[in-house]
């Protein structure tokens, strides 16, 4: 019954999206003007219905209703509660339903609260939002119905991919989805603005919170995903330039560029066509990312949800949305003026350099990701790895870091280099001192980590400079956000540099009782014993790690055997200290009762993810600042309207 109810609500929501599109489009013409009134309410109800439908699916998963095909294939009655919940979106159909639900709710929110755009632009935006949703509704209803029943209820569920039974990963995909969907709202705003040729500061301000929100989720999603790959895959690495990882990085790069160019548009009414373009590109990257992950068109080490047929469907949607939007851009953008001018030395110029660098890195990642596909078309198969991505990315990343240090210090419109050069000498000195220190203490360091660490220290100092001389309590939250996010980049970069420069590792075949040195640590394999969990059994290694004769800490690493479905995973053991992380993985049993152990000492490696969190926090501060400002403005406008009404009476 619940499944049927959920499906019915999904159909209703789809029908309302169709109505929203038709009414919104028709209302733009002179004859259909009065239809405009229903667009906002329809958008609200559509979102609510979709959310109820998703709620129905959650209930089915929590009850483990095995008469529903999706539940039977992806869940299991013995699964812990939180993974039953996560199972709702840990599969193709459920994740698509989550996608439209968030999109529908975002549309409701825009319809309820966004009042600063012209009504025509607003209608075009909501129609655009409905247009995007319809494709996903069609996808769900015609090709991947999550509520499909089995002819006979299954006796027991199939389980969830054990690699995905991890608390971090349970919330990693929805985080990324929230990011993607936020960008879809930005996309709708861009379409609306293009249709009515109404690209200006109001458009940028309306779009900005959505881009910020999306950007926060993408930052956190990428951080979580990277940490997951780090401790769950057991390879000690945190980024592999794998297509799936690139798929999440590309929208982030585009969103970062969009965020900065939208700031220019909002503050100075410049970079109009470019901002609209980025609004389209950012969502394109989300769609392309989803497509690359789902279609299985590229070989990836962590491809979980691959199905070429679904790939074709997403590709068709991609062609309609992105092709359509870019065609609209090509025909309309020539009528959008470029907006206000600015001097070569100015905040705007720095942001333009940032945009160019981010776009270039985006291009590099996109080309590297698609290159195997290109050569495959000519019967050549290649794999593109770090030898391409790292140096190519660095060409643009390094100048971007420098501009990141300088840009926030510059004034809008035009500035003199001499005015800021005195203050900027401090971070430059800090970077130089770090460089000298590295040369003295670690003369064998490789050039890239060397540059990374020195620049990270310089940027960390430079990032707090915009606060110097300001009254901290009066400093607007968005400024705090920028400072924290830029500082986060410096922190993450420091972690990256330190990890690649100073990590030490050891692979040993160890008997119980033997001690091995890795970095400053002494690790003793103290015990090997079998353990069991709710749906797995494992061999667990207990290790004692001590640092320079200090007290020993205990570490547990497991080699887990899942039964439904059968799969072996390795659970790495991590010991985090302020100055780094000890990482241990239990491998296979070698001959004569010796066990393979992989040990790493990775100095300052957690800073990579602390940096990621700081970046997200910076975004959050900016978002709170912007939204609080919007709320105050809405209230003030409400009061004015109320007074006018009373005076009029």
């Amino acid at each position, binding site marked *: 019954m619940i499944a049927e109810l959920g499906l019915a609500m999904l159909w209703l929501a789809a029908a309302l999206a169709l109505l929203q599109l038709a009414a919104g489009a028709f209302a733009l013409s002179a004859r259909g003007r009065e239809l405009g009134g229903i667009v906002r309410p329809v958008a609200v109800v559509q979102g609510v219905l979709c959310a109820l439908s998703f709620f129905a699916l959650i209930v089915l998963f929590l009850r483990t209703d095995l008469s529903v095909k999706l539940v039977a294939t992806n869940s299991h009655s013995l699964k812990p509660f939180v993974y039953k919940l996560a199972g709702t979106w840990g599969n193709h159909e459920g994740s698509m339903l989550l996608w439209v639900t968030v999109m529908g709710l975002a549309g409701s929110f825009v319809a309820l609260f966004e009042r600063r755009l012209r009504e025509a632009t607003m209608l075009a935006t909501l129609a655009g939002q409905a247009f995007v949703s319809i494709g996903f509704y069609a996808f769900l209803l015609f090709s991947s119905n999550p509520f499909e029943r089995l002819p006979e209820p299954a006796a027991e569920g199939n389980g969830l991919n054990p690699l995905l039974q991890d608390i971090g990963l349970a919330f990693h995909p929805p985080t990324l989805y929230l990011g993607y969907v936020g960008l879809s709202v930005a996309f709708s705003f861009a379409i609306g603005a293009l249709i009515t040729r109404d690209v200006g500061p109001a458009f940028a301000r309306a779009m900005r919170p959505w881009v910020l929100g999306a950007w926060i989720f993408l930052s956190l999603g990428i951080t979580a995903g990277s940490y997951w790959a780090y401790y769950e895959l057991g*390879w*000690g690495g945190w980024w*592999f*330039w*794998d297509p799936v990882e690139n798929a999440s990085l590309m929208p982030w790069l585009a969103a970062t560029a969009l965020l900065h160019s939208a700031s220019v548009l909002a503050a100075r*009414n410049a970079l109009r*066509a470019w901002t609209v*373009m980025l609004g*389209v*590109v950012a969502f*394109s990257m989300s769609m*392309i990312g989803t*497509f690359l992950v789902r*279609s299985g*068109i590229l*070989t*990836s*080490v962590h491809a979980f949800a691959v199905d*070429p047929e679904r*790939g*074709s469907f997403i*590709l068709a949607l*991609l*062609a309609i949305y*992105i*092709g359509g939007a*870019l*065609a609209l*851009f*090509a*025909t309309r*953008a*020539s009528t959008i*003026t*470029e*907006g*206000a*001018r*600015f*001097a070569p030395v100015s905040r705007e110029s720095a942001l333009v350099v940032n945009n160019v660098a981010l776009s270039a890195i985006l291009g590099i990642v996109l080309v590297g990701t*698609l290159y*195997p*596909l*290109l*050569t*495959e*078309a000519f*019967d*050549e*198969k*290649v*794999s593109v*790895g*770090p*030898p391409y991505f790292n140096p190519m990315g660095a060409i643009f990343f390094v100048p971007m870091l420098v501009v990141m240090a300088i840009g926030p210090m510059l004034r809008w*419109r*035009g500035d003199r280099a001499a005015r800021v050069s005195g203050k900027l000498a401090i971070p430059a000195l800090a970077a130089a001192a770090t460089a000298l220190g590295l040369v003295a203490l670690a003369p064998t360091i490789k050039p890239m980590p060397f540059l990374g660490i020195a620049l990270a220290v310089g940027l960390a100092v430079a990032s707090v400079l915009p606060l110097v001389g300001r009254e901290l309590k009066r400093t607007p939250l968005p400024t705090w956000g920028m400072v924290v996010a830029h500082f986060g980049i410096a922190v993450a970069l420091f972690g990256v540099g330190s990890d690649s420069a100073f990590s030490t*590792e050891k*692979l040993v075949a160890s008997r119980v009782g033997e001690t091995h040195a890795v970095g400053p640590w002494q690790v003793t394999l103290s015990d090997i014993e079998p353990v069991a969990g709710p749906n797995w059994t494992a061999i667990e290694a207990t290790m004692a790690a001590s640092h320079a004769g200090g007290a020993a800490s205990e570490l547990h690493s497991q080699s887990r055997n899942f039964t439904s479905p059968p799969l072996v995973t390795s659970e790495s053991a991590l010991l985090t200290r302020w100055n780094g992380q000890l990482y241990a993985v239990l491998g296979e049993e070698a001959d004569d009762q010796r066990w393979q152990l*992989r040990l790493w000492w990775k100095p300052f490696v957690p800073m990579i993810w602390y940096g990621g969190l700081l970046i997200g926090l910076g975004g959050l501060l900016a978002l709170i600042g912007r939204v609080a400002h919007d709320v105050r403005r809405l209230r003030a406008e409400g009061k004015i309207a109320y007074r006018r009404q009373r005076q009029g009476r």
Partner: protein
Amino acid sequence: MSEIAPVKRAGIWLWLPLALFVGFFVLVMVGLLRPADRDVASAFVGKPLPAFDLRASIPGRPGLKTADFADGKPRLLNVFASWCIPCIAEAPQLDALARAGVEIHGVAIRDRQEDVQRFLAQNGNPYTRIGADDLRAVQLAIGSSGVPETFVIDGKGVIRHQHIGDIRVEDIPKLLEKLREAGA
């Protein structure tokens, strides 16, 4: 400085994003329509290995030369690199093949000694010999364009089969069968 400056832009450039997208679309369509064909009949199948003599990729272990394939025993030649992610994915399958008694020679492409050592330490070492192919000369000479690729070489040093891409679990029986054919 004027506040609003209407700029006349060359309209043709505005079509560039769309053109790039169409290029992407065509590329992906080609990729989708051609099923992942991992069994390309290579022009090099049936040809003897070219003459080469590669230095050892890691110290203390033998390098690889053409004569190593001419002792009458069929084996696998695996082209890999420490920086290649699918190579990590296929490592368990190579290990399984090695455990099944298959002799595997490796060619490491554009790799550093310490990286190869780390790669083998982390993913297991199924190789009897590993040659370092710094310039991809041997790789290109045997008709391999990417990593990973695996060749079945018969006991006279003739290429019998080329497997493109990572070896998946389901590919193992086929490789074993090709090895049997090459051993006859």
